[in-house]
């Protein structure tokens, strides 16, 4: 039947498309193909399989003889397609059958069906979706039953299943598993919470309560239109970007907008709120006491320097002549002459009041230390040059005086029995004698320091050595030397005689040892609290010592008080090279590598209960820093409140 119905339709299409020969051929082929197929709907031999399998082949399946059934030839290119689209009036209703690969023209009925389905209507034209509804049952209650069936027994007895369910519920309610619905809370959400407030009610924990600090209020720089000076310059902005976010002083870059309309949203607004939240509940809180002191109150109230006069205040004289750094200074007990030793291998004698170089004594080596004999009746200077100590008579001042000194030295009678000495005492040669050198004490190693005893007979020298031969005590009148120590206690820096009592001070790197020369025993060991002691001076009273150190500290010891420093003064910026006490005035001075001499008032009271009063009174500057060295030696005038300082710049300066 299907065949029959199809045939007339095809003939009609043939009539329609008579103009297209190609189509005709195609259709003829189609017809032929159709004939060969049987009467089923599927008109290919391969069955209902995905047609992509045959995509690359020219055929689709095989016929009964095993020959290939070829696809209709489709060699149309784009142009042909286009031409067909333009020329064929039925192009829009032509579709391709995937099963056979043939083009099929849809009939009017088929197109109508497609349209209806597209519109969402029923496929059948004759179907009426809006037929009047007919109730199965009437809504009116009837007096007779619809069926005549008698009621079931189960409609008379209660349901067991329901009973079970109810009993379960009852049990659950009894057991408290199911709770009745909560009554609705009808109190208002907000009411006057503080109606009965008790101003004195503070919780127990509130004693330790630390209220959160409020957010910082914004400054001018946060404005949308700040004054121009608050905007960051290019460098500041770069610096801001390179900083860690936690280190920035401002959490944002100040910006200027011409009008309120141009202000954008702040991208970190939610972040900032969130961070505040975190701060509130995660940040540990602590009460911090802020120091609220006036810095002026911290400065100690010291007596005014004006009231502590006299002390040196101005530079009075400069002694020029040395060509290299001046290492050491010494002054005659009368205060008239000054002797200085320098690295240029010469010792110069100066007249203090005129700054005139009276005499130059070439010694042919670096002069490490000079010391004028403190005895006013003897005119003798000890000079350290390399391995020897020269005793020089400068022949200055009173002729009687230096003549007497020469006589004193010549009156020496060598003892009959030659004693073994650690050094050699050699009288000066004629040439040396004419220069003023009287005696040469030859040591085995280089000599660092020489210092006289107050009486002017004994002197001590320090040798740079590691053995027990570091310190030697000499008696000039008897030309006799001895080594007081049996064992070395460290590298000796300097030694000192007590001005009154028979004590001897030996400063090693970190300690100062005090020996009793009579009892020949150690009496005290002073801890300096410094890394490396450089110099030492003793108060003329003999109870106080100051120690300068290379770690720029000055330690004041009260020998009666303690073995630890009474005070550590950190006045200088660099290493201290030398310290000195004045003989009469309560003054002491320290010279340092920073080129300054600091003069301090150091009053020592006779009352044992009163501690010494230390007040810095003057910072004297004048020396030029050379080779990173400033002041090398300081020295007070024996009678006047004057201070001498020798520097690395080859000058000696007098401050009065």
């Amino acid at each position, binding site marked *: 039947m299907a065949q029959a119905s199809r045939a007339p339709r095809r003939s009609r299409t043939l009539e329609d498309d008579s103009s297209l020969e190609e189509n005709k051929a195609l259709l003829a082929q189609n017809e032929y193909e159709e004939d060969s197929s049987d009467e089923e709907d599927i008109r290919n031999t391969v069955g209902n399989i995905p047609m992509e399998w045959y995509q690359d082949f020219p055929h689709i399946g095989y016929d009964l003889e095993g020959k290939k059934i070829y696809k209709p030839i489709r060699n149309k290119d784009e142009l042909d397609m286009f031409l067909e689209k333009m020329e064929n009036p039925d192009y829009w209703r032509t579709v391709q059958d995937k099963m056979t690969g043939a083009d099929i023209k849809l009939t009017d009925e088929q197109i109508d069906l497609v349209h209806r389905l597209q519109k969402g209507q029923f496929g059948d034209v004759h179907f009426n979706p809006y037929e009047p509804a007919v109730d199965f049952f009437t809504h009116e209650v009837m007096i007779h039953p619809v069926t005549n069936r008698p009621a079931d027994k189960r409609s008379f007895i209660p349901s067991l299943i329901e009973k079970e369910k109810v009993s379960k519920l009852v049990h659950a309610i009894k057991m408290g598993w199911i709770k009745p619905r909560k009554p609705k809370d009808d109190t208002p959400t*907000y009411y006057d919470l503080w109606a009965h407030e008790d101003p004195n009610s503070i919780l127990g924990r509130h004693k330790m309560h630390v209220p959160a600090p409020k*957010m910082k209020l*914004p400054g001018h720089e946060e404005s949308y*239109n700040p004054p121009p000076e608050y905007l960051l310059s290019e460098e500041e902005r770069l610096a801001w970007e390179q900083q860690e976010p936690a280190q920035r002083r401002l959490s944002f870059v100040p910006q200027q907008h011409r009008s*309120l*309309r141009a202000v954008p949203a702040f991208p970190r607004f939610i972040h900032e709120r969130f961070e505040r*939240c975190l701060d509130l509940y995660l*940040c540990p809180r602590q009460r911090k006491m802020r120091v609220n002191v006036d810095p002026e109150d911290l400065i100690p109230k010291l007596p*005014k320097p004006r009231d502590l006069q006299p002390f040196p205040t101005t530079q009075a004289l400069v002694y020029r002549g040395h060509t290299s750094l001046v290492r050491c200074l010494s002054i005659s007990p009368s205060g008239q002459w000054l002797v200085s030793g320098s690295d240029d291998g010469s010792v110069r004698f100066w007249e203090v009041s005129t700054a005139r170089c009276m005499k130059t004594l070439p010694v042919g080596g670096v002069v490490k230390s000079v010391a004028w004999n403190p005895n006013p009746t003897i005119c003798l200077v000890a000079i350290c040059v390399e391995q020897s100590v020269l005793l020089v008579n400068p022949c200055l001042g009173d002729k009687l005086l230096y003549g007497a000194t020469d006589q004193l030295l010549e009156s020496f009678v060598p003892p009959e029995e030659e004693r073994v000495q650690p050094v050699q005492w050699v009288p000066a040669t004629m040439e040396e004698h004419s220069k003023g050198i009287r005696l040469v004490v030859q040591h085995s190693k280089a000599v660092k320091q020489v210092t006289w005893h107050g009486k002017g007979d004994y002197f001590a020298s320090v040798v740079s050595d590691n053995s027990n031969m570091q310190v030697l005590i000499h008696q000039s009148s008897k030309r006799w030397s001895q080594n007081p120590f049996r064992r070395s206690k460290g590298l000796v820096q300097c030694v000192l005689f007590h001005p009154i009592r028979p004590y001897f001070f030996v400063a090693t790197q970190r300690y100062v040892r005090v020996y009793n020369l009579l009892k020949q025993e150690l009496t005290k060991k002073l801890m300096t609290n410094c890394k490396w002691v450089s110099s030492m001076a003793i108060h003329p009273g003999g109870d106080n010592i100051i120690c300068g150190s290379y770690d720029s500290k000055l330690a004041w010891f009260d020998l009666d008080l303690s073995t630890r420093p009474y005070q550590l003064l950190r006045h200088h910026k660099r290493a201290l090279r030398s310290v000195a006490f004045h003989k009469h005035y309560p003054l002491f001075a320290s010279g340092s590598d920073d080129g300054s001499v600091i003069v301090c008032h150091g009053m020592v009271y006779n009352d044992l209960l009163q501690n010494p009063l230390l007040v810095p009174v003057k910072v004297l500057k004048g020396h030029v820093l050379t080779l990173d060295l400033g002041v090398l030696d300081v020295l007070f005038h024996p009678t006047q409140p004057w201070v001498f300082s020798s520097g690395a710049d080859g000058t000696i300066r007098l401050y009065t």
Partner: protein
Amino acid sequence: MGGLEKKKFERGAATNYITRNRARKKLQLSLPDFRRLCILKGIYPHEPKHKKKVNRGSTAPRTFYLLKDIKFLLHEPIVNSFREYKVFVRKLRKAYGKSEWSTVDRLKDNKPTYKLDHIVKERYPTFVDALRDLDDALSMCFLFSTFPRTGKCHVQTIQLCRRLAVEFLNYVIASRSLRKVFLSIKGIYYQAEVLGQPVTWITPYAFAHDHPTDVDYRVMATFTEFYTTLLGFVNFRLYQSLNLLYPPKIDGQADVELKPAEGKEYAMDSESYLEKLSALTSSLARVVAPTHEEEVELDEFPVEGETAEQMDARKKEQEALEKHKKLFEGLRFFLNREVPREPLAFVIRCFGGQVSWDKSLCIGATYDVSDPSITHQIVDRPQVQQQVVGRYYLQPQWVFDSVNAKLCLPVADYFPGVLLPPHLSPFVTEQEGDYIPPEKLKLLAMQRGEEPGEESEEEEEEEEEEEDNNDKEEEEEEEDESEKEEEMKLKKLEEQKTQSNKALLVTVTAGKLRLEDKQRLEQEQQSEEKRLAIMMMKKREKYLYKKIMFGKKRKVREANKLAAKRKAHDAAVKEEKKKSKKARRA
């Protein structure tokens, strides 16, 4: 010997603190619950004075809570409801899994809830305490009220925040307690004085939020939960103190005015109520009908020990405050659609002005653009096309600057299209030695009643002209001088040559009397004394002294830097002006 052996860490500081984990175990709570509890109860970690002692000798970084605080949490009823909620969630999940819908319904009906009233009362025993801590609550509520109604948090929370924020704004308007406003790049800061307490909050600019991913919204939501409760109670009390109805109702006669005339439904009743309220144009209904505009003359209670001067000062201050409150009294503003409506309406209404806007912009417009009684129109455009005579067209900054200056500023600087003067922060109070921007100095002068006005500008211009002339003259003079100098030099050289030819002439010139400046000497001496005294300071004191002086010096340095920057900027601007002027002349 005798007695029990003393054990370490059994007395003293170690027993006063507890680590977070131990606290959690003691309370039997999970970490999120513990955090919630801490947020709600306001418990925070403490930094012990000696960390090593408390940490049993270890220096590992740990957070410590006070043991007292944790013990105090033990009795908190909310902890129980946390546990109940946990059980509820478990049951619900189970019921869902078994598809037992009746159980689900029943469970949902009995969902455990808790109230925070008692916590608010406990944390803030008095109302003033609550006011003092209101800053964060307000800022948070204002932020949450701007969130979109989707995603990040519950819609109810957002709506509640919006409601509370609007209520608070209405209170501030009704009580006229706003004091300062500041437009920052972050948002708008407001400061109100509520019952004598300064309350500061910040609102973001009205833009959609770009929600960050590294922010934990649960924490913020917990804070908001507490803050909304607090703010609700505070609002209630504040409204009560002004005899206003709470929840607020719009005044009857204003309400009628606000009804849309066409009878068209604007929105649902519940929504339009909040919208009308947030329009901020209408006054609120009072419990007791107000007797119209009574001027309350304050009785004077002389405080003991107060001199007449102090009384006078106080009285003056009071008067200034009253005047400040009525800053915009009698002025009628109209807001163009491009200006931020809410902040401006709020600020203007706070100082007694009347405000309106285009009807299509928002509900609550009371009059039209064409109203002839409008005195100020706020515009944020470079120019205005059709200007109506009889009103000022101003940029919005004028309103804010006037409020901060406590007087209506001259309008000339704020016309549309004009380069605005800088907007200064009202929160900065400059101390001695701080840098004060010149605009602030001008403002202070204006507040004192001096009239710098336009004269100075004219003067400046005149000065400039004079300077121009002077410059030219000076240049000429300089040229002359330089010529003269050269001549002199030549002469000298010649003289020297002649001298060297002759025998060395030794002449004694009359010495000059060196005048010693006594004052300077004195100063030098004093400074030296100080330096010497500083040398004698103890190490610890010296450290402290140096620290203090460092801070002071830094402050001075920063002030100097700002001043120098300003000077450079002003010079550059002047130069620019001069150039443009010259170009114009040419």
